[in-house]
């Protein structure tokens, strides 16, 4: 195995991970962070594959399968959490769509239940 290929692969993965971590820290909204954590999981799976090529084993193949199986659960959970929460994002560009009317009673009831719970 050519070491230059491995070093280049690891450098590319590291560069991608740095960009993803920047978005994870800086991301203006929760959805950006959820997306970044999803990509970080994919990069970890790729890093496990590069490690398998480096060591010359195939022992961790099942790990990448498991990552691809359960990796979507976190983003689905966070997306449902964001959706059931009123938005106070400063970049909110879209005002007065019909979603407001459809969602207003639901959000207010959830608000009161949340404050009563505290």
């Amino acid at each position, binding site marked *: *195995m*050519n070491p230059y*290929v491995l070093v*280049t*692969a*690891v450098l*590319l*993965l590291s*560069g*991608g*991970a*740095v*960009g*993803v971590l*920047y*978005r994870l820290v800086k991301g203006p*909204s929760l*959805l*950006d962070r*959820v*997306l*970044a954590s*999803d*990509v970080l999981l*994919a*990069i970890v*799976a*790729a890093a496990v*594959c590069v490690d398998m*090529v480096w060591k*010359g*084993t*195939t022992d961790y*193949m099942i790990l*990448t*399968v498991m990552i*691809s*199986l359960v*990796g*979507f659960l976190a*983003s*689905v959970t966070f*997306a*449902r959490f*964001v*959706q*059931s*929460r009123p*938005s106070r*994002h400063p*970049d*909110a*560009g*879209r*005002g007065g*769509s019909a*979603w407001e009317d*459809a*969602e207003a009673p*639901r959000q207010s009831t959830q608000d009161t239940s949340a404050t009563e719970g505290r």
Partner: protein
Amino acid sequence: MMQTVLDVVGSVLLLVGCLMAFAAGVGLVRLPDVLTRMHAATKPQVLGLLCVLLAVIVMNRAWALLPLALLGWVFMLLTAPVSAHMVGRASYRSKHVKEEGVVKDELAIALRENTPVESQLEQWADGSEDQSR
């Protein structure tokens, strides 16, 4: 000769897969919006994962593991659209989509014109509310 060809193919697959991860990192930093960042996020999840899994198989000559790798890739292919759909819908409904970046917004048109789509959506919202309680 054959071993060299297989090594070159595996190396190219590995580098392409890692290049996808790098492109996703660059895209997540550079792109302006949640939806456009979702576009960048899909690259290492689908094509990148396929390339690195095939690279592992080709470099180790472990042809017996090809069904397992394809199974993992198919699982990613099945679950990535689920999370992308949920994140995209949540970003639209919590108004994280920048309006100047959208070329055509057919959902907003349908909602504004009060078509039967909206009554369907209201029914659907009621159903999901019951489900979440």
